[in-house]
């Protein structure tokens, strides 16, 4: 640091002064030095001008629209589509839970879909769609009434969209999905940090209809609480801990039965 009376200005302090990285005392010391050393003062001025010119020259690049290649590159990251699809495919085709999934997949007779497929279907849909940034949903939350009406019509039952604000999640929107032989719906929620939950719903008719007790399943890293209420099977998925998810599931259940 330089102080009045000191004989030399350290080169480092001159640059830190240019870059605005000195505290008040050090800044004062540099200014005192510069007042009596015009050559250094000229350098300070020149280097500051360099910085200003760099900004004038290159700041416009900040505002330019992204070329398609960069959009694609960033979207790959943001959406994680290849990874998500690979995860979904691996699940469906490999052993372990995948084998179970395929087993459950075809274990549905005429009476309807086995409830065992519900958390897996929901978790796959969760993994595929939650990384989406540009198109996380087909219909967004601003058209909530339309979303509920549309998906109710497609699923053939009256769907309500639960609100999860009390646990910090806002509705993002929803989309229509294919389940094995019927449509399904997915509603997506997001908290302030961007963490997402999805609620999957499908008609759960026939003998697959179960009591409404919550069940828990960990599908890969996705936690799922699922239950059947009336003729609809619901599954709430999230990559959050079980207790938090249960809290959200309880809110969802209550909201659905208002």
């Amino acid at each position, binding site marked *: 640091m330089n102080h009045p009376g000191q004989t030399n200005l350290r080169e480092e302090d001159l*640059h830190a002064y240019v*870059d605005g990285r000195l505290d008040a005392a050090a800044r004062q010391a540099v200014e005192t030095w510069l007042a009596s050393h015009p050559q250094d003062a000229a350098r300070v001025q020149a280097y500051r001008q*360099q910085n200003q010119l*760099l900004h004038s*020259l*290159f700041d416009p690049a900040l505002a330019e629209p992204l070329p398609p290649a*960069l959009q694609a*590159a960033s979207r790959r990251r943001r959406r994680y589509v290849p990874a998500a699809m690979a995860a979904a495919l691996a699940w469906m085709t490999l052993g372990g839970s995948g084998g179970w999934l395929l087993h459950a997949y075809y274990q549905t007779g005429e009476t309807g879909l086995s409830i065992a497929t519900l958390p897996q279907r929901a978790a796959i849909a969760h*993994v595929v769609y939650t990384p989406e940034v540009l198109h996380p949903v087909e219909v967004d939350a601003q058209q909530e009434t339309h979303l509920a009406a549309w998906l109710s019509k497609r699923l053939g039952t009256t769907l309500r969209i639960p609100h999860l604000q009390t646990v910090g999640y806002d509705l993002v929107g929803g989309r229509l999905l294919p389940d094995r032989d019927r449509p399904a719906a997915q509603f997506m929620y*997001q908290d302030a940090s961007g963490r997402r939950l999805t609620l999957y719903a499908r008609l759960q008719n026939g003998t697959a209809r179960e009591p409404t007790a919550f069940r828990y399943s960990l599908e890969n890293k996705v936690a799922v609480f699922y239950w059947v209420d009336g003729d609809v099977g619901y599954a709430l998925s999230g990559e959050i801990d079980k207790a938090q998810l249960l809290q959200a599931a309880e809110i969802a259940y209550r909201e659905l039965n208002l």
Partner: protein
Amino acid sequence: MTADTPDIAVHIPRLRRYARALVGDASRADDLVQDTLERALRKFTLWRHGSDLRAWLFTIMHNIFINQLRANRLPSVPLDDTGENTLAAPPAGQEQQLQIRDLMTALRHLPAEFRAVVLLVGLEELSYDEAARVLGVPRGTVMSRLARGREKLQALMAGEQVPTLRRVK
């Protein structure tokens, strides 16, 4: 895949700005950004949560840039003065226009290791410690390159001839 992974995309504009200044050509700069994003994607598990994502991305970009320099894919001194065409100069007074043109020319003739430091500090406004981490050199090296880089840049802008730096083909 976790929902709380931070968004790399918000850093793209600044990566583009730095790349543009570093390589001096808009399309090659965007190639560099794209390479950076793709490597960041593949290496994302190596990024430590809570650490500075932007600095990490700049580090990746710098490493790719250095590798490309070595591989001679990005000549440090372009052969022709295409910069004026690829870098749309912003509206400015005539004197500033001249200075900007001088700066573009000077930057292209500034050796890459100095250019990187001058840009990270002067344009991207990284702290000296951040610049040191991005470049993988000690802070003292950042300071000495900054001092020499600014000095050289000033000399180049003032019209110092640089025949020895110009490539001849």
